[in-house]
């Protein structure tokens, strides 16, 4: 049996152009693709893993290809492009079952009043399978992560076994970056678009006055999130060059209640992200900093004139560095020294394997051995 016979003419290619184009993703790494396949169903996925096992090929699973960490960069791999597995299989009152290649925005346009509430910056193209594999967080952080909405997954693991899983076992494939199984179908909980919340925006001349205010808000039940932009990031957004926080309240305690205005506020991060990338801030990081160390960390960034934005309730901040800057390495060392995490939102992929540590690393190793002992899936990603 060959790949061509498994996938047919339209489902397999080893042409020079396809191998070239699929050798990279949205980041700056380039690998080597041996061939590309476009599966249409679970039967083909099952046959593919069997083939890879026999021929000792490794498989790189690809959704929209928007990883910045080399998440779908091949290492002499067969690329499994899930784009053609994009059908909706079932829509219930409060759930949806889709194939992994279904695109988020298309689903939400189709869904109406109840939607998938996680909206990452690449919402126009990102696939549900990719979102689940990354356990991504949206721009509206109080909604949590996509994993919070996963009710079940159907997967083909690295041994070729097809499994229909509910929670908690389904979670063994959430956020594992495709290293434990190929996600074929996902069942997701839907939630109402209607919400009872409001926002207020505050600005501060100094970081210390801002942190004082944040401490007053922290832990209060009605506070759902605190989005922060330092003075440099604020200026890029067109605000006064001061530190800003956008506080989200449960209920109507905030000043801004208009739905359209709230939508505008929620788009700040997306607008800023694109402005930063356009201005050649090619290295946007995602350390998670303990609350008692946050002020010191932000001072360090300010001293280095690094624009930063982030979520102070979660402790996840996004310092933004120019392309080729050496400062990220300095920052990684600092984060290690203060015993915080260097990666929280953007995954590990190839580039950031060294950031996976402690319990998370042990858990990943156990799951990898259980579901993909021959290391066929996304080889070399997440950790060695």
């Amino acid at each position, binding site marked *: 049996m060959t790949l061509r016979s498994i996938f047919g003419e339209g489902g397999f290619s080893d*042409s*020079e*152009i*396809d191998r*070239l*184009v*699929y050798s*990279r*993703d*949205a980041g700056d790494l380039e690998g080597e693709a041996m061939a590309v396949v*476009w599966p249409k169903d679970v039967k083909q996925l099952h046959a593919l893993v069997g083939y890879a096992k026999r021929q000792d090929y490794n498989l790189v699973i690809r959704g*929209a*290809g*928007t990883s910045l960490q080399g998440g779908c960069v091949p290492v002499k791999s067969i690329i499994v*492009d899930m*784009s*053609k597995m*994009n059908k909706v299989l079932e829509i219930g009152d409060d759930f949806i079952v889709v194939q992994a*290649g279904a*695109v988020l*925005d*298309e689903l939400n346009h189709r869904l109406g009043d109840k939607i998938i509430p996680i909206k990452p910056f*690449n919402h*126009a*193209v990102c696939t549900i399978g990719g979102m689940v594999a990354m356990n991504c967080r949206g721009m509206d952080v109080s909604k949590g992560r996509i994993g919070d909405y996963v009710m079940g997954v159907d997967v083909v693991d690295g041994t070729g076994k097809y499994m229909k899983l509910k929670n908690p076992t389904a979670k063994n494939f959430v956020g594992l970056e495709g290293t434990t199984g190929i996600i074929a179908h996902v069942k997701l909980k839907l939630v109402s678009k209607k919400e009872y919340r409001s926002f207020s925006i505050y600005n501060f001349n100094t970081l210390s006055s801002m942190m004082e205010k944040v401490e007053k808000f922290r832990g209060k039940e009605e506070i759902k999130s605190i989005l922060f932009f330092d003075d440099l990031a604020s200026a890029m957004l067109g605000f006064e060059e001061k530190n800003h926080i956008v506080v989200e309240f449960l209920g109507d305690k905030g000043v801004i209640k208009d739905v359209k205005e709230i939508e505008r506020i929620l788009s700040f991060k997306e607008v800023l992200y*694109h402005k930063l*990338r*356009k201005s050649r801030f*090619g290295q946007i990081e995602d350390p998670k900093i303990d609350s008692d160390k946050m002020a010191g960390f932000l001072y360090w960034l300010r001293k280095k004139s690094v624009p930063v934005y982030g979520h102070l309730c979660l402790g996840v901040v996004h310092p933004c560095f120019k392309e080729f800057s050496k400062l990220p390495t300095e920052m990684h060392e600092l984060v290690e020294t203060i015993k915080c995490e260097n990666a929280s939102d953007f995954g590990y992929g190839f580039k950031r394997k060294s950031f996976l540590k402690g319990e998370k690393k042990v858990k990943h190793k156990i799951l990898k051995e259980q579901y993909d002992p021959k290391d066929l899936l996304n080889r070399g990603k997440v950790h060695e």
Partner: protein
Amino acid sequence: MSKCIECGLCKEVCPSFKILRRESVSPRGFVIMQKKEVYDKIFYLCTLCGNCEKVCPYEAKLGFLEFREKCVDEGITTNSNTKTIENLKKTGNPYGFSD
């Protein structure tokens, strides 16, 4: 003028990608071909509609029309394209109709 950073955020507005769902028939795929100076008939699957440039958050100018011209210069063309050019030269009409 901004250059494409290959983020891939324009894929879903590309009418060719929407149907074929193949990265090499997407704006990012065409940009990679351009950068590597790979000329191939597959590029004729770009409809030159410009949707990708319209939605680009970085306002990149992709230069696909110029790349099509280069393909022709390199002798990479399709039968229908050759016929259209011939017709235009002979009659000034892409379908070959004369007044």
